[in-house]
């Protein structure tokens, strides 16, 4: 039996009462060239309660969809999140990400994006982040993984940075300060002095 997935994957002990999210107002774009996978992901999202799911089978089709739904900054029917496959024959996921992040409209360039990758290497995660992905989901897709990535985007949004050569979510994960009692046997000063003696 699966446990409810939380973005932090931490115990609820000591936290405020957690809230069950309703995703019925969400519109998610699934960009996947393999129809079977596109349908599988869409069906799982529907089970999570996502109200509106749109599919695109290529980068070009995805651009058209995004322009259609998100060009009007004031629209209430905008796509809220994009799940995009890395490998596609007609313009890959990274190209689509670059297009998103380079767009002049805020409703497009800030669009949260989860990059799905068939490659599991760290390089892929880094490349995804360097191209502006909010999160990277390594395939195979499972319900737990998908829910976890959605919750990361909802609960842990990173500020966007614009620096020379990059626009996208901050690539650094926030380091949570340890608030528990000191349990180290060796003090930090002793470690420092040991290194200085070497």
């Amino acid at each position: 039996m699966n446990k409810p997935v939380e973005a932090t994957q931490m115990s609820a002990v000591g936290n405020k009462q957690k809230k069950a999210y309703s995703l019925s107002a969400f519109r998610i774009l699934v960009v996947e060239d393999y129809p079977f996978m596109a349908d599988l992901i869409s069906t799982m999202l529907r089970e999570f309660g996502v109200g509106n799911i749109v599919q695109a089978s290529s980068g070009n089709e995805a651009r058209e969809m995004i322009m259609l739904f998100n060009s009007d900054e004031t629209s209430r029917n905008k796509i809220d999140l994009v799940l995009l496959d890395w490998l596609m024959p007609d313009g890959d996921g990274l190209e689509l990400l670059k297009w998103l992040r380079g767009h002049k409209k805020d409703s497009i360039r800030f669009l949260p994006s989860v990059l799905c990758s068939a490659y599991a290497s760290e390089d892929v995660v880094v490349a995804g982040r360097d191209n502006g992905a909010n999160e990277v989901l390594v395939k195979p897709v499972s319900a737990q993984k998908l829910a976890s990535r959605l919750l990361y985007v909802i609960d842990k949004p990173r500020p966007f940075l614009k620096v020379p050569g990059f626009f996208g979510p901050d690539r650094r994960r926030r380091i949570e300060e340890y608030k528990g009692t000191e349990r180290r046997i060796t003090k930090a000063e002793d470690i420092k002095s040991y290194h200085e003696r070497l």
Partner: protein
Amino acid sequence: MNDSDGDKIEIFHRVNRLKLKAGASLHDGAGFIDSGAINRAQGIIETKQSLYPKIVEESLRKLEKSWNNFKTASSDELRNSSMEEIYHTANHIKDLASTFNYELMQHFAVSLRDFSERIDVTRKEHHIIVQAHNDVMWVVYNENIKDHGGTKAEELKLIVAKAIEKYS
């Protein structure tokens, strides 16, 4: 850090609209997705498992067609185009097999996908490697071999490994 105009860093803290849209307030802590919904979503993968043989067969036929097109192609451009199809189809088979835990099929699909990225389409020896992948993937399908282990699986992996070693 240089903060001249050219190297200026801008930070955008946006209102978390997704959280609001999910029915929470901005001050709420982390939320969750109902575990029943997650179980049902996982159940969908299990339900679709019965479709695997049919879908993987279609993909293997597509692979075979692209490979035949490759072999009869009259130019390197056409060969490259067919090889790109093989690359993407192998990646689809990988996605499919990994979703349903067909480890051996996943292994060969990854191997073919990665090899088709670095193939020299003009080298006949490289064609033998692609053919070896196609052949063993059909055997894996026809004999419904799921896992890595077992004598037959080891034998098939050895065939491909030897082909790669000899003809790369």
